[in-house]
């Protein structure tokens, strides 16, 4: 039962353009969402998060949008840089439930 879904296994964009990574969830109890970036041979690195009481959170080139009614969130990277090439994981958690539920990840490739 995949409660967090990232339906695009991979995405390729040109340097300087926008990268949009999508994530859907099924558990309506989820109230906090996070994006992690993972390079090969390294652990996931926290990127940005959003609480369910918000619909947008920005941090530099990274913006996360949350559409609760659609149970959908997206990560926008503008402008994309070659160093952004990595696997991006969407994760969610519910209230005092401390475990993170991850999607399968999307491999982003930013071409120079």
């Amino acid at each position, binding site marked *: 039962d995949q409660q967090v879904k990232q339906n695009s296994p991979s995405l390729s964009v040109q340097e300087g353009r926008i990268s949009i990574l999508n994530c859907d969830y099924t558990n309506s109890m989820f109230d906090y969402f996070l994006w992690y970036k993972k390079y090969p041979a*390294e652990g996931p690195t926290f990127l940005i*998060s959003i609480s369910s009481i918000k619909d947008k959170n920005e941090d530099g080139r990274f913006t996360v949008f949350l559409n609760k009614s659609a149970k959908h969130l997206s990560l926008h990277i503008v402008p994309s840089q070659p160093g952004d090439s990595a696997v991006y994981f969407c994760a969610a958690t519910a209230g005092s439930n*401390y475990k993170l539920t991850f999607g*399968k990840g999307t491999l982003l490739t930013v071409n120079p």
Partner: protein
Amino acid sequence: DAGVTQSPTHLIKTRGQQVTLRCSPKSGHDTVSWYQQALGQGPQFIFQYYEEEERQRGNFPDRFSGHQFPNYSSELNVNALLLGDSALYLCASSYLPAGADYGYTFGSGTRLTVV
């Protein structure tokens, strides 16, 4: 500042054997969580330790057990290894009172191969 340290980085074991993986949390962190990442999948929560007690557990059999020491470091033990236990095991530390900030810091993981 050292982040989360995991050892060993790679390990090969035979079916039926037992394995112990180790994790030292980031300085200032008091909580350790363990995740299993199979090939092509996202990390799956195994369990979390706080104040030397298992706080929460994911959907993993009793063959998976853990321990947290007074210095907050942790071990993950897997008994009676199966081929399907082959995966990257990730340790994540956090500071519990941070609450919803969920400032998890992940280690680079231990790659376990069961043959």
